[in-house]
Protein backbone atom coordinates (compact mmCIF):
# COMPACT_ATOMS: atom_id res chain seq x y z
CA UNK A 1 0.00 0.00 0.00
CA UNK A 2 1.51 3.30 -1.01
CA UNK A 3 2.49 5.65 1.78
CA UNK A 4 2.08 8.93 -0.04
CA UNK A 5 -1.67 8.85 0.42
CA UNK A 6 -1.43 8.38 4.14
CA UNK A 7 -4.01 10.70 5.60
CA UNK A 8 -3.16 9.97 9.19
CA UNK A 9 -0.97 13.01 9.71
CA UNK A 10 -3.59 15.41 10.97
CA UNK A 11 -2.12 18.87 11.49
CA UNK A 12 -3.66 19.43 14.89
CA UNK A 13 -2.48 18.04 18.15
CA UNK A 14 -4.93 15.25 18.67
CA UNK A 15 -3.37 13.07 21.34
CA UNK A 16 -4.66 12.91 24.88
CA UNK A 17 -3.45 15.67 27.21
CA UNK A 18 -0.33 14.60 29.05
CA UNK A 19 0.31 17.11 31.78
CA UNK A 20 1.13 15.86 35.25
CA UNK A 21 -2.11 17.22 36.71
CA UNK A 22 -4.29 15.54 34.13
CA UNK A 23 -2.45 12.25 34.60
CA UNK A 24 -3.09 12.55 38.33
CA UNK A 25 -6.74 13.28 37.68
CA UNK A 26 -7.09 10.30 35.36
CA UNK A 27 -5.42 7.91 37.80
CA UNK A 28 -7.36 5.02 39.26
CA UNK A 29 -6.47 6.03 42.79
CA UNK A 30 -8.47 9.25 42.62
CA UNK A 31 -11.62 7.46 43.73
CA UNK A 32 -9.87 6.25 46.88
CA UNK A 33 -8.62 9.78 47.54
CA UNK A 34 -12.16 11.12 47.25
CA UNK A 35 -13.50 8.38 49.54
CA UNK A 36 -10.77 9.13 52.07
CA UNK A 37 -11.75 12.80 51.92
CA UNK A 38 -15.37 11.91 52.62
CA UNK A 39 -14.39 9.58 55.48
CA UNK A 40 -12.08 12.14 57.07
CA UNK A 41 -14.43 15.12 56.68
CA UNK A 42 -16.24 14.52 60.03
CA UNK A 43 -12.85 14.74 61.77
CA UNK A 44 -12.57 18.32 60.54
CA UNK A 45 -16.04 19.35 61.56
CA UNK A 46 -18.67 17.11 63.08
CA UNK A 47 -21.33 19.49 64.30
CA UNK A 48 -24.87 18.15 63.73
CA UNK A 49 -25.27 20.87 61.11
CA UNK A 50 -22.12 19.84 59.24
CA UNK A 51 -23.05 16.14 59.32
CA UNK A 52 -26.52 17.00 58.08
CA UNK A 53 -25.11 19.01 55.17
CA UNK A 54 -22.56 16.32 54.31
CA UNK A 55 -25.13 13.52 54.40
CA UNK A 56 -27.41 15.53 52.15
CA UNK A 57 -24.50 16.14 49.79
CA UNK A 58 -23.68 12.41 49.67
CA UNK A 59 -27.30 11.57 48.81
CA UNK A 60 -27.18 14.24 46.14
CA UNK A 61 -24.08 12.61 44.66
CA UNK A 62 -26.06 9.37 44.48
CA UNK A 63 -28.86 11.08 42.55
CA UNK A 64 -26.44 12.79 40.19
CA UNK A 65 -24.63 9.53 39.47
CA UNK A 66 -27.97 7.93 38.63
CA UNK A 67 -29.09 10.77 36.39
CA UNK A 68 -25.71 10.65 34.71
CA UNK A 69 -26.63 7.20 33.41
CA UNK A 70 -29.79 8.54 31.79
CA UNK A 71 -28.61 11.95 30.60
CA UNK A 72 -24.84 11.65 30.49
CA UNK A 73 -24.38 8.17 29.05
CA UNK A 74 -27.57 7.65 27.10
CA UNK A 75 -28.38 11.25 26.20
CA UNK A 76 -32.02 11.08 27.33
CA UNK A 77 -32.90 14.46 28.78
CA UNK A 78 -34.86 13.73 31.95
CA UNK A 79 -36.41 16.72 33.71
CA UNK A 80 -38.38 14.65 36.19
CA UNK A 81 -35.66 12.53 37.70
CA UNK A 82 -36.61 13.37 41.24
CA UNK A 83 -39.78 11.29 40.72
CA UNK A 84 -37.67 8.13 41.09
CA UNK A 85 -36.34 9.40 44.39
CA UNK A 86 -39.91 10.09 45.44
CA UNK A 87 -40.99 6.56 44.51
CA UNK A 88 -38.09 5.11 46.50
CA UNK A 89 -38.60 7.34 49.54
CA UNK A 90 -42.38 6.84 49.68
CA UNK A 91 -42.17 3.09 49.13
CA UNK A 92 -39.60 2.75 51.88
CA UNK A 93 -41.45 5.13 54.19
CA UNK A 94 -44.88 3.55 53.76
CA UNK A 95 -43.68 -0.04 54.15
CA UNK A 96 -41.46 0.63 57.13
CA UNK A 97 -44.18 2.63 58.88
CA UNK A 98 -46.92 0.10 58.16
CA UNK A 99 -44.95 -2.95 59.28
CA UNK A 100 -42.63 -1.16 61.69
CA UNK A 101 -39.66 -2.49 59.76
CA UNK A 102 -36.20 -0.97 59.64
CA UNK A 103 -35.75 0.76 56.28
CA UNK A 104 -33.09 -1.65 55.13
CA UNK A 105 -35.71 -4.40 54.76
CA UNK A 106 -37.77 -2.29 52.40
CA UNK A 107 -35.01 -2.28 49.78
CA UNK A 108 -36.35 -5.26 47.76
CA UNK A 109 -39.75 -3.59 47.53
CA UNK A 110 -38.09 -0.28 46.65
CA UNK A 111 -36.15 -1.98 43.85
CA UNK A 112 -39.31 -3.50 42.44
CA UNK A 113 -41.21 -0.22 42.61
CA UNK A 114 -38.43 1.89 41.10
CA UNK A 115 -37.87 -0.58 38.27
CA UNK A 116 -41.59 -0.42 37.60
CA UNK A 117 -41.44 3.37 37.69
CA UNK A 118 -38.52 3.28 35.28
CA UNK A 119 -40.51 1.08 32.91
CA UNK A 120 -43.62 3.23 33.21
CA UNK A 121 -41.73 6.42 32.44
CA UNK A 122 -39.36 4.80 29.97
CA UNK A 123 -41.68 2.73 27.79
CA UNK A 124 -43.96 5.48 26.45
CA UNK A 125 -41.08 7.89 25.86
CA UNK A 126 -38.84 5.59 23.85
CA UNK A 127 -39.78 7.10 20.54
CA UNK A 128 -39.31 10.66 21.74
CA UNK A 129 -36.13 12.62 21.38
CA UNK A 130 -34.62 15.65 23.09
CA UNK A 131 -37.17 18.45 23.62
CA UNK A 132 -40.22 16.22 23.49
CA UNK A 133 -38.70 13.76 25.89
CA UNK A 134 -37.80 16.59 28.26
CA UNK A 135 -41.41 17.81 28.33
CA UNK A 136 -42.84 14.33 28.93
CA UNK A 137 -40.39 13.56 31.75
CA UNK A 138 -41.13 16.96 33.27
CA UNK A 139 -44.79 15.97 33.24
CA UNK A 140 -44.09 12.61 34.85
CA UNK A 141 -42.11 14.29 37.59
CA UNK A 142 -44.95 16.63 38.40
CA UNK A 143 -47.57 13.86 38.18
CA UNK A 144 -45.63 11.85 40.74
CA UNK A 145 -45.41 14.77 43.14
CA UNK A 146 -49.06 15.76 42.74
CA UNK A 147 -50.17 12.15 43.18
CA UNK A 148 -48.20 11.92 46.40
CA UNK A 149 -49.75 15.19 47.48
CA UNK A 150 -53.28 13.86 47.05
CA UNK A 151 -53.24 10.23 48.10
CA UNK A 152 -54.14 9.13 51.61
CA UNK A 153 -51.53 6.39 51.71
CA UNK A 154 -48.72 8.91 51.11
CA UNK A 155 -50.01 11.17 53.86
CA UNK A 156 -51.13 13.95 51.56
CA UNK A 157 -49.37 17.32 51.73
CA UNK A 158 -47.87 16.62 55.16
CA UNK A 159 -46.30 13.35 54.00
CA UNK A 160 -45.05 10.56 56.22
CA UNK A 161 -43.41 11.18 59.59
CA UNK A 162 -41.54 9.09 62.09
CA UNK A 163 -39.96 6.69 59.63
CA UNK A 164 -37.78 4.17 61.49
CA UNK A 165 -34.04 4.23 60.87
CA UNK A 166 -32.13 2.06 58.43
CA UNK A 167 -31.29 -0.58 61.02
CA UNK A 168 -31.03 -0.87 64.78
CA UNK A 169 -29.80 -3.69 66.95
CA UNK A 170 -28.66 -3.42 70.53
CA UNK A 171 -26.71 -0.26 71.05
CA UNK A 172 -25.95 0.12 67.37
CA UNK A 173 -28.34 2.59 65.80
CA UNK A 174 -27.80 3.71 62.24
CA UNK A 175 -29.77 6.85 63.00
CA UNK A 176 -26.76 8.27 64.88
CA UNK A 177 -25.86 11.17 62.56
CA UNK A 178 -22.21 10.11 62.29
CA UNK A 179 -23.11 6.46 61.67
CA UNK A 180 -25.72 7.40 59.11
CA UNK A 181 -23.21 9.65 57.40
CA UNK A 182 -20.68 6.83 57.08
CA UNK A 183 -23.29 4.35 55.91
CA UNK A 184 -24.48 6.86 53.32
CA UNK A 185 -20.95 7.57 52.13
CA UNK A 186 -20.26 3.87 51.80
CA UNK A 187 -23.44 3.13 49.86
CA UNK A 188 -22.97 6.16 47.62
CA UNK A 189 -19.33 5.25 46.95
CA UNK A 190 -20.35 1.75 45.89
CA UNK A 191 -23.03 3.09 43.55
CA UNK A 192 -20.81 5.77 42.09
CA UNK A 193 -18.26 3.07 41.32
CA UNK A 194 -20.94 0.83 39.86
CA UNK A 195 -22.20 3.65 37.66
CA UNK A 196 -18.68 4.43 36.46
CA UNK A 197 -18.06 0.76 35.71
CA UNK A 198 -21.32 0.45 33.82
CA UNK A 199 -20.21 3.40 31.73
CA UNK A 200 -17.09 1.53 30.65
CA UNK A 201 -18.78 -1.70 29.63
CA UNK A 202 -20.62 -3.14 26.68
CA UNK A 203 -23.87 -1.68 27.98
CA UNK A 204 -22.25 1.68 28.70
CA UNK A 205 -20.89 1.83 25.18
CA UNK A 206 -24.30 0.89 23.80
CA UNK A 207 -25.76 3.84 25.73
CA UNK A 208 -23.22 6.14 24.14
CA UNK A 209 -23.83 4.70 20.69
CA UNK A 210 -27.52 5.47 21.12
CA UNK A 211 -26.69 8.98 22.31
CA UNK A 212 -24.40 9.65 19.36
CA UNK A 213 -26.40 8.10 16.53
CA UNK A 214 -29.42 5.94 17.10
CA UNK A 215 -29.70 4.68 13.52
CA UNK A 216 -26.08 3.65 13.30
CA UNK A 217 -26.41 1.86 16.64
CA UNK A 218 -29.49 0.06 15.39
CA UNK A 219 -27.65 -0.97 12.20
CA UNK A 220 -24.98 -2.61 14.38
CA UNK A 221 -27.61 -4.80 16.00
CA UNK A 222 -28.18 -2.74 19.13
CA UNK A 223 -31.80 -2.80 20.22
CA UNK A 224 -32.07 0.90 20.92
CA UNK A 225 -35.34 0.60 22.86
CA UNK A 226 -33.97 -2.10 25.18
CA UNK A 227 -30.82 -0.10 25.77
CA UNK A 228 -32.78 3.06 26.52
CA UNK A 229 -35.12 1.21 28.87
CA UNK A 230 -32.11 -0.18 30.71
CA UNK A 231 -30.78 3.36 31.12
CA UNK A 232 -34.10 4.39 32.65
CA UNK A 233 -34.19 1.34 34.91
CA UNK A 234 -30.66 1.84 36.20
CA UNK A 235 -31.30 5.54 36.68
CA UNK A 236 -34.48 4.68 38.56
CA UNK A 237 -32.70 2.23 40.86
CA UNK A 238 -30.06 4.81 41.74
CA UNK A 239 -32.74 7.41 42.36
CA UNK A 240 -34.91 5.03 44.38
CA UNK A 241 -32.10 3.95 46.67
CA UNK A 242 -31.16 7.62 47.02
CA UNK A 243 -34.76 8.04 48.18
CA UNK A 244 -34.30 5.34 50.84
CA UNK A 245 -31.22 7.15 52.15
CA UNK A 246 -33.19 10.37 52.04
CA UNK A 247 -36.03 8.84 54.08
CA UNK A 248 -33.52 7.48 56.58
CA UNK A 249 -31.77 10.82 56.83
CA UNK A 250 -34.85 13.00 57.40
CA UNK A 251 -37.09 10.26 58.87
CA UNK A 252 -39.86 12.07 57.04
CA UNK A 253 -40.99 12.29 53.43
CA UNK A 254 -43.22 15.00 52.03
CA UNK A 255 -44.16 16.18 48.53
CA UNK A 256 -42.26 19.46 48.93
CA UNK A 257 -39.00 17.52 48.72
CA UNK A 258 -39.77 16.44 45.16
CA UNK A 259 -40.55 19.68 43.41
CA UNK A 260 -39.26 20.43 39.92
CA UNK A 261 -36.44 22.55 41.33
CA UNK A 262 -34.91 19.37 42.77
CA UNK A 263 -34.93 17.65 39.37
CA UNK A 264 -33.41 20.78 37.88
CA UNK A 265 -30.68 20.86 40.54
CA UNK A 266 -29.71 17.23 39.92
CA UNK A 267 -29.62 17.88 36.19
CA UNK A 268 -27.55 20.98 36.85
CA UNK A 269 -25.06 18.90 38.85
CA UNK A 270 -24.67 16.52 35.89
CA UNK A 271 -24.30 19.28 33.31
CA UNK A 272 -22.05 21.45 35.46
CA UNK A 273 -19.80 18.55 36.38
CA UNK A 274 -19.49 17.20 32.85
CA UNK A 275 -22.03 14.89 31.26
CA UNK A 276 -20.95 11.30 30.99
CA UNK A 277 -17.90 11.61 33.21
CA UNK A 278 -18.56 10.12 36.64
CA UNK A 279 -15.73 12.06 38.28
CA UNK A 280 -16.96 15.35 36.93
CA UNK A 281 -20.53 14.56 37.96
CA UNK A 282 -19.47 13.84 41.55
CA UNK A 283 -17.73 17.21 41.66
CA UNK A 284 -20.74 18.91 40.10
CA UNK A 285 -23.03 17.33 42.68
CA UNK A 286 -20.77 18.46 45.53
CA UNK A 287 -20.64 22.00 44.16
CA UNK A 288 -24.41 22.18 43.75
CA UNK A 289 -25.19 20.71 47.16
CA UNK A 290 -22.42 22.29 49.21
CA UNK A 291 -22.17 25.61 47.34
CA UNK A 292 -25.18 27.30 48.89
CA UNK A 293 -24.03 26.16 52.35
CA UNK A 294 -20.52 27.51 51.88
CA UNK A 295 -21.95 30.82 50.70
CA UNK A 296 -24.08 31.08 53.82
CA UNK A 297 -22.34 34.24 55.03
CA UNK A 298 -23.78 36.04 52.02
CA UNK A 299 -27.05 35.63 53.91
CA UNK A 300 -30.09 36.49 51.82
CA UNK A 301 -28.01 36.98 48.71
CA UNK A 302 -26.46 33.53 48.70
CA UNK A 303 -28.65 32.06 46.00
CA UNK A 304 -28.02 35.16 43.89
CA UNK A 305 -24.29 34.65 44.36
CA UNK A 306 -24.64 30.94 43.63
CA UNK A 307 -26.66 31.60 40.52
CA UNK A 308 -24.09 34.07 39.25
CA UNK A 309 -21.36 31.55 39.88
CA UNK A 310 -23.20 28.94 37.82
CA UNK A 311 -23.72 31.39 34.96
CA UNK A 312 -20.04 32.30 34.96
CA UNK A 313 -19.01 28.64 34.97
CA UNK A 314 -21.34 27.80 32.10
CA UNK A 315 -20.15 30.76 30.03
CA UNK A 316 -16.50 29.88 30.42
CA UNK A 317 -16.85 26.11 30.55
CA UNK A 318 -20.02 25.13 28.71
CA UNK A 319 -18.91 21.49 28.58
CA UNK A 320 -18.81 21.36 32.39
CA UNK A 321 -15.93 21.27 34.85
CA UNK A 322 -14.72 17.91 33.74
CA UNK A 323 -16.34 16.58 30.59
CA UNK A 324 -16.02 13.02 29.34
CA UNK A 325 -12.99 12.83 27.11
CA UNK A 326 -13.01 10.52 24.17
CA UNK A 327 -9.51 9.23 24.68
CA UNK A 328 -8.19 5.83 25.55
CA UNK A 329 -4.74 4.25 25.56
CA UNK A 330 -3.22 3.31 22.22
CA UNK A 331 -2.23 -0.26 21.49
CA UNK A 332 0.42 -1.66 23.77
CA UNK A 333 4.00 -1.74 22.49
CA UNK A 334 3.82 -5.38 21.45
CA UNK A 335 0.91 -4.65 19.17
CA UNK A 336 2.56 -1.47 17.89
CA UNK A 337 5.61 -3.51 16.93
CA UNK A 338 3.44 -5.94 15.03
CA UNK A 339 1.83 -3.08 13.17
CA UNK A 340 5.26 -1.67 12.35
CA UNK A 341 6.30 -5.02 10.95
CA UNK A 342 3.15 -5.24 8.85
CA UNK A 343 3.75 -1.72 7.58
CA UNK A 344 7.37 -2.51 6.71
CA UNK A 345 6.30 -5.57 4.77
CA UNK A 346 3.47 -3.81 2.98
Amino acid sequence: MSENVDTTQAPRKIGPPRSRISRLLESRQLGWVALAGAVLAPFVTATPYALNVMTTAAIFVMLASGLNIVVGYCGLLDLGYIAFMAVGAYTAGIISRSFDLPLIFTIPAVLVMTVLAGLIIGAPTLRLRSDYLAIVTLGFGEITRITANNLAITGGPSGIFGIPGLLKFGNFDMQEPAVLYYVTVLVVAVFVLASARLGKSRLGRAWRFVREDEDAAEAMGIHTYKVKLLAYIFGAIWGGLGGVLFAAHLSAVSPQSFIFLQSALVLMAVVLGGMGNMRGVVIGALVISLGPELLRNLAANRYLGFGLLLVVVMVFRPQGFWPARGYEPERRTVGADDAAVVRAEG
Partner: protein
Amino acid sequence: MTAILEVKDLQIAFGGVRAVDGLSFSAHEREIIAVIGPNGAGKTSAFNCITGFYRPTSGSVLINGLDTTGKRPADIAAVGVSRTFQNLRLFPDLTVLDNVRAGMHLYGGQNWADAIFHTPRFKRSEAMYTEEAHRWLDFVGFEGARGIPVRNLSYGQQKRVEIARALARKAELLLLDEPAAGLNYSEKQQLLALCRRIRDLGTAIVLIEHDMGLVMELSERIIVMNFGREIAVGTPAEVKANPAVIEAYLGKDDEGAQSNGDA
Protein backbone atom coordinates in the same frame (compact mmCIF):
# COMPACT_ATOMS: atom_id res chain seq x y z
CA MET B 1 -25.58 -22.31 -4.12
CA THR B 2 -27.91 -20.76 -1.59
CA ALA B 3 -28.41 -17.05 -1.74
CA ILE B 4 -27.36 -14.93 1.23
CA LEU B 5 -29.65 -12.17 0.13
CA GLU B 6 -32.79 -12.60 -1.90
CA VAL B 7 -34.87 -9.57 -2.77
CA LYS B 8 -38.20 -10.38 -4.38
CA ASP B 9 -40.35 -7.78 -6.08
CA LEU B 10 -39.47 -5.12 -3.50
CA GLN B 11 -41.63 -2.01 -3.54
CA ILE B 12 -41.72 1.07 -1.39
CA ALA B 13 -43.79 4.16 -1.96
CA PHE B 14 -43.59 7.49 -0.16
CA GLY B 15 -46.96 9.06 -0.73
CA GLY B 16 -47.36 8.82 -4.48
CA VAL B 17 -43.67 8.40 -5.25
CA ARG B 18 -42.62 4.85 -5.90
CA ALA B 19 -39.01 5.00 -4.81
CA VAL B 20 -38.48 1.29 -5.37
CA ASP B 21 -40.87 -0.34 -7.78
CA GLY B 22 -40.46 -4.07 -8.12
CA LEU B 23 -36.80 -4.77 -7.54
CA SER B 24 -35.61 -8.37 -7.48
CA PHE B 25 -32.09 -9.67 -7.15
CA SER B 26 -30.03 -12.04 -5.09
CA ALA B 27 -26.50 -12.13 -3.72
CA HIS B 28 -24.38 -15.18 -2.96
CA GLU B 29 -21.36 -15.95 -0.87
CA ARG B 30 -18.14 -14.32 -2.12
CA GLU B 31 -19.99 -12.22 -4.62
CA ILE B 32 -19.58 -8.51 -5.26
CA ILE B 33 -22.66 -6.89 -6.69
CA ALA B 34 -22.94 -3.25 -7.62
CA VAL B 35 -26.17 -1.32 -7.72
CA ILE B 36 -25.86 1.69 -9.96
CA GLY B 37 -28.22 4.25 -11.37
CA PRO B 38 -28.79 7.97 -11.62
CA ASN B 39 -29.49 10.01 -8.51
CA GLY B 40 -32.96 9.32 -7.14
CA ALA B 41 -33.16 5.93 -8.82
CA GLY B 42 -34.06 4.28 -5.50
CA LYS B 43 -30.76 2.64 -4.67
CA THR B 44 -30.46 3.89 -1.10
CA SER B 45 -34.19 3.34 -0.53
CA ALA B 46 -33.68 -0.27 -1.53
CA PHE B 47 -30.78 -0.55 0.94
CA ASN B 48 -32.92 0.94 3.66
CA CYS B 49 -35.64 -1.60 2.93
CA ILE B 50 -33.18 -4.48 3.08
CA THR B 51 -31.72 -3.30 6.39
CA GLY B 52 -35.08 -2.52 7.95
CA PHE B 53 -34.83 1.26 8.15
CA TYR B 54 -37.81 1.49 5.78
CA ARG B 55 -40.70 -0.92 5.80
CA PRO B 56 -41.32 -2.09 2.24
CA THR B 57 -44.78 -1.47 0.86
CA SER B 58 -44.73 -4.93 -0.67
CA GLY B 59 -42.32 -7.64 -1.70
CA SER B 60 -39.99 -9.62 0.50
CA VAL B 61 -36.39 -9.74 1.64
CA LEU B 62 -34.80 -13.05 2.57
CA ILE B 63 -31.48 -13.16 4.34
CA ASN B 64 -29.86 -16.57 4.73
CA GLY B 65 -33.22 -17.99 3.81
CA LEU B 66 -34.98 -16.11 6.61
CA ASP B 67 -37.76 -13.71 5.79
CA THR B 68 -36.74 -10.39 7.35
CA THR B 69 -39.27 -8.17 5.61
CA GLY B 70 -40.43 -5.42 7.94
CA LYS B 71 -38.29 -6.44 10.89
CA ARG B 72 -36.37 -3.99 13.08
CA PRO B 73 -32.90 -2.99 11.83
CA ALA B 74 -31.31 -4.51 14.94
CA ASP B 75 -33.00 -7.86 14.31
CA ILE B 76 -31.95 -7.81 10.67
CA ALA B 77 -28.39 -6.98 11.72
CA ALA B 78 -28.49 -9.99 14.03
CA VAL B 79 -29.43 -12.28 11.15
CA GLY B 80 -26.19 -11.35 9.41
CA VAL B 81 -26.33 -8.00 7.66
CA SER B 82 -23.99 -5.12 8.14
CA ARG B 83 -23.94 -1.79 6.37
CA THR B 84 -22.29 1.56 5.95
CA PHE B 85 -24.15 4.77 5.28
CA GLN B 86 -24.10 7.19 2.38
CA ASN B 87 -23.04 10.04 4.62
CA LEU B 88 -20.76 8.85 7.36
CA ARG B 89 -22.69 7.73 10.39
CA LEU B 90 -19.97 7.23 12.96
CA PHE B 91 -20.20 8.08 16.65
CA PRO B 92 -18.20 11.32 16.44
CA ASP B 93 -17.29 11.88 20.10
CA LEU B 94 -16.25 8.30 20.74
CA THR B 95 -12.83 6.88 20.08
CA VAL B 96 -11.87 5.01 16.94
CA LEU B 97 -11.72 1.78 18.93
CA ASP B 98 -15.13 2.35 20.51
CA ASN B 99 -16.62 2.94 17.07
CA VAL B 100 -15.33 -0.43 15.90
CA ARG B 101 -16.46 -2.08 19.15
CA ALA B 102 -19.99 -1.06 18.21
CA GLY B 103 -19.89 -3.70 15.50
CA MET B 104 -19.14 -6.39 18.09
CA HIS B 105 -22.08 -5.60 20.31
CA LEU B 106 -23.86 -8.83 19.44
CA TYR B 107 -21.09 -11.18 20.50
CA GLY B 108 -19.77 -9.45 23.60
CA GLY B 109 -20.13 -12.21 26.17
CA GLN B 110 -20.70 -9.92 29.13
CA ASN B 111 -23.72 -8.48 30.89
CA TRP B 112 -24.24 -5.54 33.22
CA ALA B 113 -23.57 -7.58 36.35
CA ASP B 114 -20.19 -8.63 34.94
CA ALA B 115 -19.45 -4.96 34.36
CA ILE B 116 -20.38 -3.84 37.87
CA PHE B 117 -18.41 -6.62 39.59
CA HIS B 118 -15.55 -6.72 37.07
CA THR B 119 -15.73 -10.49 36.80
CA PRO B 120 -13.01 -12.44 34.97
CA ARG B 121 -15.51 -12.87 32.16
CA PHE B 122 -15.81 -9.09 31.88
CA LYS B 123 -12.04 -8.68 31.65
CA ARG B 124 -11.75 -11.40 29.03
CA SER B 125 -14.58 -9.85 27.07
CA GLU B 126 -13.08 -6.36 27.18
CA ALA B 127 -9.69 -7.72 26.11
CA MET B 128 -11.40 -9.51 23.22
CA TYR B 129 -13.19 -6.31 22.20
CA THR B 130 -9.98 -4.32 22.10
CA GLU B 131 -8.00 -7.00 20.31
CA GLU B 132 -10.70 -7.54 17.70
CA ALA B 133 -11.10 -3.80 17.17
CA HIS B 134 -7.38 -3.47 16.47
CA ARG B 135 -7.51 -6.48 14.19
CA TRP B 136 -10.31 -5.02 12.06
CA LEU B 137 -8.61 -1.63 11.94
CA ASP B 138 -5.47 -3.39 10.74
CA PHE B 139 -7.56 -5.25 8.19
CA VAL B 140 -8.91 -2.08 6.61
CA GLY B 141 -5.43 -0.56 6.66
CA PHE B 142 -6.19 2.11 9.23
CA GLU B 143 -3.02 3.69 10.44
CA GLY B 144 -2.73 6.36 13.06
CA ALA B 145 -4.05 7.01 16.53
CA ARG B 146 -6.91 4.77 17.62
CA GLY B 147 -7.55 6.12 21.08
CA ILE B 148 -8.78 9.51 19.93
CA PRO B 149 -12.27 10.75 19.06
CA VAL B 150 -13.20 9.75 15.55
CA ARG B 151 -14.26 13.33 14.74
CA ASN B 152 -10.59 14.32 14.71
CA LEU B 153 -9.86 12.07 11.75
CA SER B 154 -9.78 12.96 8.09
CA TYR B 155 -12.69 11.95 5.88
CA GLY B 156 -10.81 9.09 4.25
CA GLN B 157 -9.84 7.69 7.62
CA GLN B 158 -13.37 7.97 8.91
CA LYS B 159 -14.58 5.98 5.91
CA ARG B 160 -12.17 3.22 6.83
CA VAL B 161 -13.34 3.23 10.43
CA GLU B 162 -16.92 2.89 9.23
CA ILE B 163 -16.00 -0.12 7.11
CA ALA B 164 -14.06 -1.61 10.03
CA ARG B 165 -17.12 -1.15 12.22
CA ALA B 166 -19.33 -2.86 9.65
CA LEU B 167 -16.83 -5.72 9.30
CA ALA B 168 -16.58 -6.19 13.05
CA ARG B 169 -20.23 -7.20 12.89
CA LYS B 170 -18.92 -10.35 11.11
CA ALA B 171 -21.96 -10.45 8.88
CA GLU B 172 -22.33 -12.67 5.83
CA LEU B 173 -23.69 -9.74 3.88
CA LEU B 174 -22.13 -6.30 3.72
CA LEU B 175 -23.97 -3.38 2.17
CA LEU B 176 -21.76 -0.43 1.25
CA ASP B 177 -23.50 2.81 0.35
CA GLU B 178 -21.16 4.85 -1.85
CA PRO B 179 -17.92 3.72 -0.24
CA ALA B 180 -15.77 5.62 -2.73
CA ALA B 181 -17.53 8.97 -2.50
CA GLY B 182 -15.06 11.69 -1.58
CA LEU B 183 -12.01 9.49 -1.87
CA ASN B 184 -9.04 10.36 -4.08
CA TYR B 185 -7.60 8.07 -6.74
CA SER B 186 -5.18 6.11 -4.59
CA GLU B 187 -7.67 5.81 -1.77
CA LYS B 188 -10.08 4.32 -4.30
CA GLN B 189 -7.42 1.82 -5.37
CA GLN B 190 -7.01 0.83 -1.73
CA LEU B 191 -10.76 0.49 -1.38
CA LEU B 192 -10.78 -1.79 -4.40
CA ALA B 193 -8.19 -4.06 -2.82
CA LEU B 194 -10.02 -3.94 0.50
CA CYS B 195 -13.33 -5.00 -1.06
CA ARG B 196 -11.60 -7.99 -2.62
CA ARG B 197 -10.08 -8.96 0.70
CA ILE B 198 -13.51 -8.69 2.33
CA ARG B 199 -14.95 -10.94 -0.37
CA ASP B 200 -12.19 -13.44 0.31
CA LEU B 201 -13.42 -13.66 3.89
CA GLY B 202 -16.52 -15.26 2.41
CA THR B 203 -18.69 -12.16 2.65
CA ALA B 204 -21.13 -11.10 0.00
CA ILE B 205 -20.86 -7.41 -0.84
CA VAL B 206 -23.58 -5.30 -2.35
CA LEU B 207 -22.45 -1.76 -3.05
CA ILE B 208 -24.01 1.38 -4.36
CA GLU B 209 -21.46 3.39 -6.25
CA HIS B 210 -21.23 6.20 -8.75
CA ASP B 211 -17.60 5.71 -9.67
CA MET B 212 -17.94 3.63 -12.83
CA GLY B 213 -14.26 2.78 -13.04
CA LEU B 214 -14.43 1.20 -9.61
CA VAL B 215 -17.74 -0.53 -10.30
CA MET B 216 -16.57 -2.02 -13.59
CA GLU B 217 -13.35 -3.29 -12.13
CA LEU B 218 -14.74 -4.64 -8.88
CA SER B 219 -18.15 -6.13 -9.39
CA GLU B 220 -19.09 -9.48 -10.82
CA ARG B 221 -22.65 -8.43 -11.42
CA ILE B 222 -24.17 -5.01 -11.88
CA ILE B 223 -27.77 -4.07 -11.30
CA VAL B 224 -28.79 -0.86 -12.98
CA MET B 225 -31.75 0.99 -11.49
CA ASN B 226 -33.76 3.90 -12.74
CA PHE B 227 -37.07 5.26 -11.43
CA GLY B 228 -37.14 2.50 -8.84
CA ARG B 229 -36.96 -0.28 -11.40
CA GLU B 230 -34.20 -2.59 -12.45
CA ILE B 231 -33.47 -1.66 -16.05
CA ALA B 232 -30.53 -3.95 -16.64
CA VAL B 233 -28.52 -6.62 -14.93
CA GLY B 234 -25.39 -8.48 -15.94
CA THR B 235 -21.63 -8.54 -16.00
CA PRO B 236 -19.85 -5.19 -16.35
CA ALA B 237 -19.31 -5.84 -20.05
CA GLU B 238 -22.97 -6.66 -20.65
CA VAL B 239 -24.18 -3.63 -18.75
CA LYS B 240 -21.79 -1.32 -20.56
CA ALA B 241 -23.21 -2.46 -23.87
CA ASN B 242 -26.85 -2.25 -22.81
CA PRO B 243 -28.70 0.52 -24.65
CA ALA B 244 -31.18 1.02 -21.79
CA VAL B 245 -28.32 1.82 -19.43
CA ILE B 246 -26.79 4.32 -21.77
CA GLU B 247 -30.15 5.92 -22.20
CA ALA B 248 -30.62 6.20 -18.44
CA TYR B 249 -27.26 7.85 -17.97
CA LEU B 250 -26.90 9.93 -21.12
CA GLY B 251 -30.46 10.47 -22.23
CA LYS B 252 -31.95 9.34 -25.50
CA ASP B 253 -30.93 11.06 -28.69
CA ASP B 254 -29.06 10.38 -31.90
CA GLU B 255 -25.73 10.38 -30.08
CA GLY B 256 -26.98 7.50 -27.96
CA ALA B 257 -26.44 4.93 -30.65
CA GLN B 258 -22.96 6.19 -31.32
CA SER B 259 -21.74 6.03 -27.73
CA ASN B 260 -23.24 2.57 -27.55
CA GLY B 261 -20.94 1.52 -30.30
CA ASP B 262 -17.94 3.10 -28.57
CA ALA B 263 -18.54 1.28 -25.36
